[in-house]
């Protein structure tokens, strides 16, 4: 019986969504896609297929690493601003202001061209184990994107930490929990739940920032599209496919985060 009701429910919702004008719009969209497939040039695809997959993988890898590392920096930065003394709060605030007040492209080029041009002058750096990494471009890209994510997310975490009700922390203290345990069991989880909806938006923004690393010669999917454009003299096809790829990744991200959000039992405020 219950399954029958859900089936009726789904049918009703679908018929509500699929109004006549939407069917027409979908048909027009399908027509546009079909004409793009038929009348545009896609014969370069087999040749660049593997390179494209590598590019997508590299973009996703950069996204994952920088979000994880950035969040790890954002937690202390947010905590310092929400609860720290002025000696830790002020530097954290300055860090967030600088990161949020300057373009990411400039930060990236400052690190790659500015900082990168300093290192070769020191023999001890050239002889150390870091040198093979410092000579490549991707560590600078990862560093810039990590700092950027930390700056934006640190501000979010400040609000999230400050928004946890005082009573929760006082109750934890009354139970005799140590400061570390209060942080681990009460403060961080509740702040994290509060920050989660914003985290979705920040992650999508971070995905949209990853193509900037192509400007310092990291071969991500954006750079692959640029190479296709250079080799084949095609203007639109690689860019349209690129837009489609990013939209797909964004859709998957939003869907996944929505699933995670729905799993959190007690919604706050």
């Amino acid at each position: 019986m219950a399954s029958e009701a859900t089936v009726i429910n789904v049918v009703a919702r679908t018929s509500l969504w699929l109004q006549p004008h939407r069917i027409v719009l979908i048909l027009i969209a399908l027509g546009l896609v079909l004409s793009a497939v038929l009348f545009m040039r896609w014969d370069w695809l087999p040749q660049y297929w593997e390179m494209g997959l590598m590019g997508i993988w590299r973009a996703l890898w950069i996204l994952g690493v920088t979000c994880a590392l950035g969040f790890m920096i954002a937690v202390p930065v947010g905590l310092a601003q929400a609860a720290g003394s002025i000696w830790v709060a002020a530097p954290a605030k300055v860090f967030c202001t600088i990161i949020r007040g300057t373009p990411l492209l400039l930060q990236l080029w400052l690190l790659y061209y500015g900082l990168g041009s300093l290192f070769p002058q020191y023999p001890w750096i050239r002889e150390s184990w870091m040198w093979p990494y410092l000579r490549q471009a991707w560590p600078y890209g990862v560093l810039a994107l990590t700092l950027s994510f930390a700056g934006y997310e640190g501000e979010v975490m400040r609000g999230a930490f400050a928004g946890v009700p005082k009573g929760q922390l006082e109750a934890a203290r009354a139970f005799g929990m140590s400061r570390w345990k209060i942080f681990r069991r009460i403060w961080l989880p509740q702040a994290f739940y509060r920050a989660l909806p914003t985290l979705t938006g920040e992650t999508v923004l971070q995905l949209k920032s990853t193509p900037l690393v192509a400007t310092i010669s990291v071969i991500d999917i954006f750079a692959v599209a640029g190479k296709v454009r250079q080799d084949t003299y095609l203007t639109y096809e690689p860019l349209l496919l690129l837009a489609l790829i990013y939209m797909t990744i964004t859709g998957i991200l939003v869907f996944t985060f929505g699933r995670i959000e729905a799993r959190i039992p007690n919604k706050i405020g």
Partner: protein
Amino acid sequence: MAPAERASTPGAKLIDAFLPASAAGIIELLSPAPVGWGGTLMLGLLHSLEIAVGATCVGLLIGICGAYGKLYGGPVVRDLLAVYTTIVRAVPELVLILLLYYAGTDLINQLLTAIGYQRIDISGLVAGIAVLGFVQGAYSTEVMRGAILAIPQGQIEAARAYGMSPGLLLRRITLPAMLPFAIPGLANLWLIATKDTALLAVVGFFELTLATRQAAGVTKAYLIFYLAAGVLYLTVSLFSNLMLGRLEAWSRRGMPSVKDAR
């Protein structure tokens, strides 16, 4: 001290990296006179600000129309606007800029040749403003839609009951009443616009970031110029924050304070 002597100690070497010649050298590098590159940077900053102001204005215009379309438009208009805002917010700005920059100029030229006019060279300034304005429009549509919904609807109904025409209603009631709800979001969009102008450096438009890159490339003083540009961007952001805070306070005049309500 002779340069060779100074470079012998490691600490002095670090200072040398920051100061290729000397402290006087930095001032010379950043001076607005032709020997220095300060004038180039300031010109780049001017171009950046022109683009940011233009893009914000275009974005506001699209935003108002888009919000009206989303709230009061027919089903087709609403769906098309939903597609517009979703696509623009899901695709990286860099890709959109490349796509619109080439597609936009190409389309206009094809249209012109089809009607029988000469091809025209679209200036980078106009193209940049149009492209960034198109991107900003998607975001400000959402901001304005939320702000119009936050107005107590009785005010709009009362204005309609007085027989105000839609244009008068927009000018006298909707726009002023939604301002306090829209300004925080729009302030954020302005800050994003000033930073997004840097992306136009990738398509070769001469603005602050590209000016910095040229200056740094010629003089090899990378760190100095990138730091100087960072300071300029930061100054713009902080000054905007100050002004926008005042603007918000002004638009909220006569409204109950949020702080008192708690």
